[in-house]
């Protein structure tokens, strides 16, 4: 038996104003503006260049969002780059003060106004510095297991330090350690299933994703953390270390790294699996990432010959309300 819905479909809603939480695919008529509207999802999935940093560098700490990011520390050849620079979505501005110590191979977490940086090439490698929006302060206590090439995610008061090469220096080996930070002290958490350094991470201290890195070779391993333990999930398509990451545990983006040589390869995580997407224009490793899978940021890194000042802005899938025109 035919029904009205089966024959004509749903009626278009006639509303005085746009709905507060429209769903993808929802169509309505706004009687105030006399416009037909639709909520839709558009997959841009591309990189565009952003403002270049003053200090080219690699192995730095970087975090924040696409329009409010921070970079500090790192190195370019033999020259340490303790300088802090702040990104506003268009340009990088040098902050008057840099990190308190010269260091690179650093990890970080947080926002442009409240961040934390930890781990470095300088023994013991556990040093932790706190960023308050204008200056770095040495935290009285450092990581329990100092190291370099860790991954960081979360916030200044709920951060994770993951993997790395511990201890610092030639005797360092790929680590499975995870430590959580509460704003003042580090506590040892669950171990990674795959010990590795120079990996990337996304998410929070209780819902994070760790991916890529270096075990005794480049790895595609991906693991999910629930605040207590790590679970191995589907692997990346391209094995690499020194990659960047952005997003959350269920919607992440991985980019760059060294896959035998520097790469701009980009992969998207949907909570279950990785898919290959559009590559960055400037291939590089030891890169930093910030933001989300919808609005990500890649900056700094090693381009195969020297440090990079390049910034690239990722636009993923954007959900927006569009006015339907029929002319």
């Amino acid at each position, binding site marked *: 038996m035919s029904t009205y819905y089966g024959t004509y479909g749903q009626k278009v809603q006639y509303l005085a104003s746009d709905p507060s939480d429209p769903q993808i695919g929802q169509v309505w008529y706004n009687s105030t503006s006399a416009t037909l509207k639709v909520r839709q999802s558009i997959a*841009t999935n*591309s*990189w*565009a*260049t*952003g*403002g*270049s940093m003053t200090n080219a560098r*690699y*192995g730095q700490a970087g975090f924040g969002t696409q329009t409010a990011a921070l970079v500090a520390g790192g*190195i370019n*050849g*033999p020259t340490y780059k303790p300088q802090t620079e702040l990104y506003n979505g*268009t*340009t990088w501005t040098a902050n008057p003060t840099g990190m308190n110590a010269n260091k*690179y*191979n650093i990890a970080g977490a947080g926002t442009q106004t409240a961040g934390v940086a930890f781990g470095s*090439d300088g023994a013991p490698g556990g040093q932790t510095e706190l960023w308050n929006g204008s200056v770095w302060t040495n935290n009285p206590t450092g990581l329990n297991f100092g190291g*370099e*090439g860790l991954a960081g995610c979360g916030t200044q008061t709920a951060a994770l330090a993951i993997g790395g*090469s511990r201890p610092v*220096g*030639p005797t360092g080996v790929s680590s499975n350690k995870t430590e959580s930070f509460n704003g003042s002290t580090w506590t040892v958490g669950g171990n990674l299933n795959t010990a590795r*350094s*120079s990996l990337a991470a996304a998410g929070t201290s209780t819902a994070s994703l760790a991916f890529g890195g270096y075990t005794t070779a480049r790895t595609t391993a991906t693991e999910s953390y629930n605040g207590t333990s790590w679970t191995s999930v589907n692997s990346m398509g391209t094995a690499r270390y*020194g990659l960047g990451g952005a997003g959350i545990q269920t919607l992440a983006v991985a980019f760059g790294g*060294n896959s035998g*040589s520097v790469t*701009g390869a980009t992969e998207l995580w949907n909570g279950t699996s990785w898919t290959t997407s*559009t*590559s960055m*224009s*400037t*291939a590089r*490793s*030891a890169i930093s990432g910030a933001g989300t899978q919808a609005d990500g940021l890649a900056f700094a890194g*090693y*381009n*195969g*010959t*020297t440090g990079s000042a*390049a*910034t690239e802005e990722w*636009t993923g899938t954007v959900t927006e309300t569009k006015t339907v025109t029929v002319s």
Partner: protein
Amino acid sequence: MAYKYCVAENWGKGFITHDDASKFQVSGFPGNVWQIPANSQDANLWVNKVAGTFKTKAEAQTIVDAEVATAQAAWDALTDEQKQQPFNRQRPTAIVLE
């Protein structure tokens, strides 16, 4: 795929836009060398937009080789201890343009 090359300085925001990226792939190499598809009118327009200078593949390769040679010399000058640092462990390797 066949490629063309140009040299242009990445000035930052707006150098490569999402609109550019939706039309063709730009790949950067050391020495401000950029690789674009050989048969793309949009890519040609982009080179004009960024005031790029077209280079033959051989010319582009020479520029990249010079950058790599400089980086290799810098790496060779590092101390053994410095060469043990994670991102210094690998001597810069040759980059061969496609």
